[in-house]
């Protein structure tokens, strides 16, 4: 995202250069023996680190008030450190105190701006947490999120079931699996891009139909898993059939041909007890069509 900040970064670069020219023009170079290396490393290091933080912040955030404040703050800290550091190389005329002003204004002002930025960043984070609530439940690990639906995967589901049961061993904790009917046929007929769009739509639809404590995961492929803390078997069954009917009522139109697809889903649910992996395997097996008799006999 750095390309969004070409102009501000250019201004920052020019400011660094301007600072150098200012010291060079108005001061005289100290003899090498007078250079205080400890100070150079300390002050120059601050400037360098602040610049790295600035680049990391800008490369990872969209534009906005929070980014502007964080960026300005870090730029101020970096420029202050730079002025401090240049001080070690150049002797200014006696009586000139603009450099003191520069050092003591830039650094603290930068830190103040940074602090204000962090305050707003915290507020922004609260509102993002609210949006992510049904997707991640109080434990953040960006590696488990699926690229298409932005939902966590089966591994995260298993961790969450374990955490939930450890936290509230008395309360029942249910899991629903929901599998889209003939999803592979939609992929074949309308392309995998269309399949991806449908998965996104269904994940939004399911999120809208869940409570605040519930967690929606993409188990794998076209199979979703829903963790319902504090929910008994009967309630989970009701929620499962509600979710199935919600998917059935979605009037989905393909993008290219505008064809209305009639969707359906199969659902199964269970209260988690005993080994999570075994129980999830059994739930998955329940979703499969029954084996023909001959195969069962063998």
């Amino acid at each position, binding site marked *: 995202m750095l390309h969004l900040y070409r102009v501000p970064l250019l201004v920052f670069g020019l400011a660094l250069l301007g600072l150098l020219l200012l010291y060079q023009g108005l001061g005289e170079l100290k003899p090498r023996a007078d250079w205080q290396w400890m100070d150079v490393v300390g002050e120059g290091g601050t400037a360098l680190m602040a610049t790295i933080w600035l680049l990391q912040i800008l490369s990872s955030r969209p534009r906005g008030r929070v980014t502007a404040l964080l960026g300005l703050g870090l730029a101020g800290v970096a420029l202050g450190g730079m002025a401090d550091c240049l001080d070690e190389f150049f002797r200014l005329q006696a009586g000139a105190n603009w450099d003191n002003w520069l050092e003591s204004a830039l650094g603290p002002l930068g830190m103040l701006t940074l602090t204000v930025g962090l305050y707003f960043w915290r507020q922004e984070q609260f509102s993002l947490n609210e949006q992510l609530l049904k997707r991640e439940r109080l434990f953040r690990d960006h590696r488990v999120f699926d690229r298409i639906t932005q939902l966590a995967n*089966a591994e995260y589901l298993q961790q969450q079931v374990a955490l939930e049961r450890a936290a509230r061993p008395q309360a029942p904790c249910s899991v629903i699996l929901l599998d889209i009917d003939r999803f592979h046929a939609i992929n074949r007929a309308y392309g*995998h*891009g269309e399949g991806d769009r449908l998965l996104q739509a269904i994940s939004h639809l399911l999120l809208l139909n869940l409570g605040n404590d519930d967690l929606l995961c993409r188990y*794998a*492929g076209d199979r979703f898993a829903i963790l319902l803390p504090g929910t008994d078997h009967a309630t989970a069954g009701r929620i499962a059939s509600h979710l199935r009917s919600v998917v059935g009522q979605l009037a989905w139109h393909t993008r290219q041909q505008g064809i209305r697809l009639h969707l359906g889903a199969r659902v199964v649910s269970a209260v988690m007890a005993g080994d999570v992996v075994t129980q999830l395997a059994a739930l998955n097996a329940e979703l499969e069509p029954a084996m023909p008799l001959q195969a069962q006999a063998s």
Partner: protein
Amino acid sequence: MLADCYSRDTPLLPAMHQPALLSSLAARRDMASDMLLRGTGLDALALSEGRAAVSPAQLLAMLANLAKQDGQRDVAFELGQQWLPGHYGTISLALLQAPNLAEALSLLITHQDQLCPLLGPRLQVEGGELLLYWTDSVGVAALMPFLVELHMTAVSALCRWLADEPLPWRYCFNRTPPRNLAQHQVHLGSHLQFGCQLDAMVLDSQWLHQPWPRSNPAAYAMLKQQLLRQGRPQYSLVQVLYDRLHAQIGNPPTLEEAATLLATSPATLKRHLAKHGTHFQALLDLVRTHESLRLMQYHGYGQEELAQYFGFHDARNFRRSFKRWTGMAASLPFSLAGAPW
């Protein structure tokens, strides 16, 4: 004949076949094309214009690049869903019109150079069961588990589509169970067994001749004629040698005899096998492993009989050799009665 075989480096695949499938999947995953083609020596522009032909080794490198970027470990399964019948010209059209599983599998095996050049499928029908197992054709090394997932998903998804119902396949994997089974469960089903001595899919053989609703027999016959006119399909050297050894497994040829059969010199044969990540003895051991598993599974052979069949002095000798071939004790690859499914 060695000259008729394809190798790792034969430019076998037109750019619009499997390579195009990989490119579009990479694009859907926001993966840059230079990332996909890293280490292949292929030119992105030539590939996108359909001018390049791709060798098995290059296809393998592209797949390895995809696998490296695959945080969710689902890329093999997603590719598998699209791999067959594919858009590989006449052969894909013929697969699409296949009247039943038996015909589809026969096309897959005969035209593996176009459909699955990296892993060779082998079919065995015995004791009321069909067993489709996969062996390395070009030295796929560490990518084997990934390719097994891909090919098994491809065949399962093809059958589910053409039969208009999922077939109750059971799967055996020559590997330890993965950390998470979710992808296997959703894309293949729950009848999974790990730690087997071969990578195989098993199905009741009654499914072989169940008619498939999508087929048009007249079109299928014409497409098969057209395939015949395309000329003889190619096979990898490893697969050809496997067939030779398998045909005479009771009294297998030596390296020198095998070289003569393939109209080449022993040194050249050795060099070619090394290029494909194997050697003569390893291949012979592999064929003997598969054959002993078949005899144990379907003909009730014990170790005494197997030792005799393969010309060992005694059962103890055979047991030791089998352990060396597979790293496991000689036992049934998948149990029939009391199976986990």
